Every structure is written in C-alpha cells, then in structure tokens.
C-alpha cells in the first residue's frame, strides 16, 4: 500500500475560479492522502487546445488518473473529497 504511486494530470482552461478551486482541492487531498507519492501535471487547454481532442477532454476541470491504471477521470472542482478519493482509488470503493 505504501509504495503505491499516482501520476495525475489536471486539465484546466485558463485561470478560472473553478480551476483554481480544483487545483487547491487537489493539492490538499494529495498532501493528506498520498504524501509524496504523486505527481501533478497541470495542462492549460487554452494554451494547448490540441490536447483537448487528443486526451478526450470535454468537461473542465478534469483530473485524469493515469497511474494507477485503469485510466480514470474525475470531473468538477473536486469539492467532494469522498468522491475524489474513490476516483483516485485511495480508499477502497464502497460496495
């Protein structure tokens, strides 16, 4: 459990309030639950719109969990911590 790693990408479109909230929420959750075993890449689609298509992004903000696989997307400002943890597979999914 302790050697588990997370490679995360957060897709935003400009510095919108929602994106900022999402980023803040993400940092907080990661520090609390993954403690140094994660990487966060922030991709601003405003700067690189081509990636929206390539990575199949529709909703903003979208957090993509690349590792651990399978790929998982968590959309929204990540204000619901429970759901983020489920989505990131930090705590086992409830039945």
């Amino acid at each position: 459990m302790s050697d588990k790693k997370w490679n995360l990408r957060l897709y935003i479109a400009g510095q919108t309030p929602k994106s900022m909230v999402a980023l803040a929420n993400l940092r907080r959750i990661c520090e609390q639950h993954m403690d140094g075993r994660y990487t966060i890449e922030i991709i601003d689609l405003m700067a690189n719109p081509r990636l929206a298509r390539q990575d199949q992004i529709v909703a903003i903000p979208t957090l993509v969990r690349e590792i651990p696989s399978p790929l998982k997307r968590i959309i929204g400002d990540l204000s619901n911590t429970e759901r983020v943890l489920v989505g990131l597979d930090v705590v086992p999914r409830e039945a």
Partner: protein
Amino acid sequence: MESLQTSHPPGTPPAGIDKALTGIAGFDEITRGGLPTGRPTLVCGGPGCGKTLFAMQFLVAGATRFDEPGVFMSFEERTDELAKNVASLGFDLYDLMGRQRLAMDTVVIDRSEIEESGEYDLEGLFLRLDFAIQSVGAKRVVLDTIESLFSGFQNEAILRSELRRLFHFLKDRGVTVVITGEQGEGLLTRQGLEEYVSDCVILLDHRINDQVSTRRLRIIKYRGSAHGTNEYPFIIDEHGLEVMPVTGLHLRHPASRERISSGVERLDTMLGGQGFFRGSSVLVSGTAGTGKSSLAAHFADATCRRGEQCLYIAMEESPEQILRNMRSIGLDLERWAKNGLLRFIASRPTLFGLEMHLATIFRAVQQVSPSVVIVDPISNLSTIGSLTETMSTLLRLVDSLKAKQITALFTSLTSTGDEENETHLGVSSLMDTWISLRNLEHNGERNRGIYVLKSRGMNHSNQIREFLLTSQGVRLEDVYLGKEGVLTGSARLAQEARERADSTQQREELAALQRRLDRKKAALEAQVSLLQAEFEAEAEEVRKRNLEADRREQDLMADRQAMAAVRLADRNSSEKEP
C-alpha cells in the same frame, strides 16, 4: 414570398434570410436554398432514419462544391467508421481532411471511467470545437448526436445551461450548424433539443407500410423562410440521400417545336401530320389487349431508327418477352437492343417502394441519357402506393423528363368500361398527348380503335381509326362512319361493299326517275301546245265573228238608206215617223 414559389429558379436562395445549400438533391428546392446560414438546424428522427447521412452530405457538399469547409463532431461513431460508411457514396473523408476541407473529432465519453466531484463546465468541448473550426476555417458544423452528452454526465442542470451556451457560441462563430437528435416518445428529441434550436427543425421518418419501406422528410419549422409543409418522400441509396419534391416547383420546361415520329405513319398524320413534339409526354391508354405495348414498341423502333437512345421501362413483361412479342408483329427490336440504342429496365413495381422506383428510373435516365423514355405500363405503379402517392410520383417523373427534353410515352391499362375515365390515375392533365385505344365490339367481333383524345399545341384529328396489328406492324385504317355508326373489321368491309352496291342501285334508280321526268315533261309540253292551238282557234273564231257583225251593220245602214230613197221621205218626216 408566395410569388417566389413559381418564379424562383432552384439553387439560388430567395431574398430574405441567407441560406446554405445542402447539395442534397430535392432538399434545396423545397427549402428554396437550403439551411439558414449561420444558424443551427435540428435534424431529428428515429434510429436509422438517415440523420447522420443528411448531416454528412451537407458537410461534404459544402467542402467540395460550395467552398465552405466543415467540422464533423461525432458523439457516437468514430472517424474511421464514419469514413467507411460514407465511402460507398463516393465520399473520401480522409482526402477532405488531408486537404483541410474537413475536420473530424469524435467525442468519447465513457461513463464508467468518470467520477463527478463538484462543479464543472464543458469548456473542453468548446475548445475542441473552436480548435476544429479554426483549423479548417469552417463555415459548417455538424454535431452528431449531441444528446449523447446526457448519458455521459449526471448533472443535467449543468448540461442544459452548457447547451444553451454552446448554441450562443456557435452563432457567434457564424457557422451553419446541423445538430442531429434521436426522436423521443411524444417529443421530437429525447432530450428536448428543439428547445435550444429555434430556427429550423427537420424531421426524418422511416416507416414500413405493407412491407414496403418509405422514408419521409418534413420541415417542422423554418423561421424566416417560406417552406413546404408537406411530407416529402426521400430515398437513401448508393448516391446518398435524395428528397423528392412532391410537385415540380417550377413550370419552366423548355417547349420544343421539333416533331418526332410516333413510328406509325398514319398516327403521325392524325397528330397534325408530324407526330409528337419532342420533350412532350404521351399517354397511351386502353383496356387489356388493345395494342398499347405494340404502339410503344413502334415508337421505340422509330426512335432507334433515328439513331437516338431509347429507354424502355418494362413493368409487366420481361425484355425477352417484349422482343419476342414484337417480332410477331414484324418489329425487330432485338437489333436495337444489341447495338445499345434500346435499353430495357425491367422491374416489378411491387418489389420496391415508389420512391425507389422513381429513383431507379432517374438513375437510368441519367446514365443512358435517352431521348425517349417509355414506361409500360404506369398503371402498375398504382399497385404500390396510395392514389396521391402514385400521382405525385408520376408528376415528378413527368416533370423531370420534361425538364430534360426527353419525350416520354406512358402506357396505362384501363379497366373495361372505363376507357374515357382516366381520373383514377389523374395523370391525363400532366400529359400533352393522350391517345386512347379501345375495343369496338360489333357483330360478335372485337376490333381495335384508336383516337387522339387530346394533343396540345397541334391540330390533331378527331376521328377514330381502326387499329390493326398485322405481321408488318401496326396499321391504321379509316373506320366506316355512317348511319349505322362506327364499324370496324369485317363489318366495315361488309358495310363498304354494301355501300358500293347500294350506290349502283341508287344511280340506276335515279336514271329511271330522270327518264320518267323527261317523258312527263314532253307530255306536258305537248298538252300545252294543244291548248294553245285550241285557244288560237277560238280567238280566230271570235275575230271572224266580229268582222261579220261589222259587215252586217254596214249592210243594214245601206239597206235603210236605199229604202229611204225609195220612199222619197224627207229628213224631217223620217224623223217624226215612229
């Protein structure tokens, strides 16, 4: 707006709102120019109704013909699937993408890999769309089917407000948009997309009646534009989607003065001496066995003799059967069939829907580009559809052939006793020339009669001719017209012989009468001279008597004077004496 209906040529949008041509045959006519430019159009219908194809044709036409590149954003099928599907229609999507005429993007939303946590928007979608539009300079956008978003995301409130924003976004970009939507129960679309699209809504329908599938298109709404409100049949085949306008919108057929032979010399004579007008439509109606097909075959033969192409659409007999039958009346059509001047299309109308039939004919006409089309018989079409359907199919056929200056001959089977009444098909008004073949029954014999019911623009004969099918082909004979009525066949021959005999007798009788009259005249003259002689004799007598009387008077006077001289009486005594 209404006056535009007849005066406006197809293809160019009328004044009013700007329109973008879809390139879909027939659709641009009924909408008078296509879809509203810079606005969204909702195309909805059940599964398999042709929504995606409609949208794709709109895009490809824009990219290839109207210099309007497009973006196809799919929410269902992947690009390679779409490309494969439309490749059979001759659309090469990869080529268009390579030439920057088309951008494609497939939005994949896998519900199972998505977790929702808090507020979000669909800015990603907007960015993708914007990127695609800019990459090719798109003027046209297709969203197929955007409703899929509703199954991908849970928060409907967000979705609805984002959809509203999306349509504003698209209008801002000035692109002409086609949004497809799946038909829902009691609604045009499952998610009520019509709420967002207020400019133009088109409903496609696919239904099956009597095991024959028919497709219909209806314009439910078209803001700022007049449009047909009818249901228009359309077909989907290897050439894509094609809408059939129910009526020809424009009566602007060129009218040729050129005349072409019907293939039967005496029929040409009946038709003002020169036959049919080129580009006119001819109806040959008649009951069974009156020789409609034979007349049609003669026309085909005459066409091929002139070295022109003839397309023969056989709905009743196979081409082989026709060739064989016509040989029996001395017509060798086989040589024309062999050298390609005569082409046959044989199909039973009941196999396909009316639209499919019409399309088959149109295609054949396009391929062969004939100068004459023969449909034998059109009455078989009425076995497929309702009266109005058949009527409109024929109308479209006649119109399109006329527009191409193709002379068309249609045969029509009428039921016995219904020769004059063609209204069950109601096609007579569409026809320029109507030749009626009928059976004339007399003296236990059945003969064929032919007459020209009408023929526009020419001084045609109003007489009935006898129509003979001989081993040398069709021959027309004068019928006997006399006090006994119209006689044909052996009755005509007998009557003609009788008439000849009658006239000899009459001549003889007349001569006898003349002789009698001459005699009478002689007798009369004799009598007159006799009377005159009598009269003259009497007059002579009277004259003689008058002379005698005068003489006697003189004698008396002389006697008296003599007597007075004797008595020596003086004048006075003689006066006083009595």
